[in-house]
C-alpha cells in the first residue's frame, strides 16, 4: 500500500490522544493503526486465555475437516508464548502471519518514535506479496487437510 504513508486529514486528529500529541500524533496514520491492532492481537494471544474460550470452527464441527483458517488461533497463541514448534504444528501459515504481523507492528512503532519515513512499497511488489500470501494460505489449507486425511 504505497500511499498509506500519507495520513488522512482527521485520522491524525483522532489519534492524537493515543499517540500523546506532537510529532507522534502528526505522523500517526493508517499504518500505525494497523500496528496498534497487531500489538493488541499479541497482547490478547499472550495474556488472555483465548484457547479456553469454548468456540469451535463450525465447518470443522460439521465436516470433521479444517477450514482455511483453522489452527490460526492456536498458532498465534503459540508464537506469542515463543513455542514455534507448536505454532507450526497448529498452522504454518498462522505462525508465519503472526510473526510477520507482530514484527512489522513493532518495527512501525519504532519507526514512528525514531521519526523515520514509512518505506514506500511499489505497487507491483505489493501485488506479488498479496499473491504469494494467497498461495501460501491455499497451500497451508491443502497441507492441513492432507494431514487429517492421510494415515
Amino acid at each position, binding site marked *: 500500500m504505497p500511499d498509506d504513508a500519507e495520513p488522512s486529514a482527521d485520522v491524525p486528529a*483522532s489519534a492524537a490522544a493515543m499517540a500523546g500529541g506532537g510529532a507522534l500524533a502528526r505522523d500517526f496514520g493508517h499504518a500505525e493503526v494497523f500496528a496498534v491492532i497487531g500489538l493488541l492481537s499479541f497482547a490478547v494471544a499472550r495474556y488472555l486465555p483465548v484457547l479456553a474460550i469454548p468456540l469451535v470452527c463450525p465447518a470443522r464441527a460439521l465436516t470433521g475437516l*479444517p477450514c482455511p483458517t483453522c489452527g490460526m488461533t492456536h498458532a498465534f497463541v503459540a508464537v506469542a508464548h515463543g513455542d514455534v514448534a507448536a505454532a507450526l504444528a497448529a498452522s504454518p501459515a498462522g505462525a508465519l502471519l503472526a510473526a510477520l504481523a507482530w514484527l512489522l507492528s513493532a518495527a512501525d512503532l519504532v519507526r514512528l518514535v525514531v521519526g523515520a519515513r514509512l518505506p514506500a512499497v511499489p505497487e507491483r511488489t505489493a501485488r506479488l506479496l498479496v499473491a504469494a500470501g494467497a498461495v501460501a494460505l491455499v497451500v497451508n489449507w491443502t497441507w492441513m487437510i492432507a494431514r487429517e486425511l492421510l494415515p
Partner: protein
Amino acid sequence: MLARCARCQNNFTTETFGLQRCPHCGSELLLSDPNAPPPAAPQTASPAGTGMATSAQPAEPAGGSGALPPPPPPPPGGGPGGFGTPPGGGPPPGPEGELPAPFAERDRLGFFHAYIETFKLVATKPQEFFRRVRIDRSGSAVLFGLVSAVVGNAISALYSWAGAQQATLAMRQMMDRLPADQRQAFEQMVPWFSGHGVLWTALFAPIWAIVSIYVAAGILHLLLLLFRGANRRFDATLTTVGYAYGLTILLAVPACGSLIALVWYIVALIIGTAESQRCGTGKAAAAVLLPGVLLCCCCAGAGVLGLAGAMKAIGGVTKGGPVDL
C-alpha cells in the same frame, strides 16, 4: 475525437457520440454531439442511469493547445450527491469536485442530523455518495461505522438477551439431530449465542468495530491491488468500508436485522468500492466477494471430502469389512 470520463477523469479516443462506456473504468457515459441542434429546453439533469456528466470535443488540429475542458462542476448543494451542503456554505469541494459527507461536517450540521443524512445517502444513493465523497476524511467514516455498530449491536444484544431462553432451546433441538461428537462441539458454542456471551459481545463492540473496519478495509485493498483495481489510495477503501459499515445499525431491526444488514452492507460495499476506487463493478465485486466465496468453496469442498469419507465408512460397514475412519 478526444473525450474525458467525468468519473475517472481519464482521456480516451472515440469516433462516435452518444451512449458508450469508458474504456478505463467501464462506466456508462453520454457524449453529446456539439453540432447537434440545441434542445428546446435546457437540460440540467444527467441521463437516467448514468448519473454523471461527460465532456467531449473533436480532435484538435495540429498545433492546438490540447487542453481539455475542465471537469464538470459538482451539482449545487442539496441535490443528488450534494450531501446537504447549503449553497454558498460549507467547505470547498475537493480536488476532484468531491464533497465531504454530512457526517464529516457534524460540528456544523449537528451530530444526529449529520448521521441521519449520511445514513440515507449510504443506504439509498450509494453510487452517487461514494462517487462524490471526499476520501481524505476517513476518520469520520470510521467513526460513522463505529457509532452504527455500537448502537446496532447494543439493540441486537437486547433482543438476544430477551430471547435467550428460546434461542438456547432452538439450538438444543437442532443439536439433538447431530452426531454425538458434533453435538458436543456445538454444545460449547451455545453460551455465545445467549446470555452473557451476547452481553460481552455488546460491550466489546466498539473495539471490535474499529478492528473490523480496518482489517476489512486492509483485506479489501489488498485484493483490489491483486485485481489491479486499487486506483486510489487506501483512504478511499477505508472511507468506503467505514460508511458501508454504518449499515450495521440495521442490526437493530428485530428478527431478520442481521441478514438485512449483511446483504445491504455487501451491496453498498461493492457499489461503493466501484465508485470510490473508480475500478468498475466487476473488480469491486470480485474483491468484496472473493473471501466469502473462497470460504464457502473451501467449506463445501471440505464437506464433500467428509461426505466421501462417511460413504466409504458406510460401504465398509455394509460389506462387513473393517471401518477405518
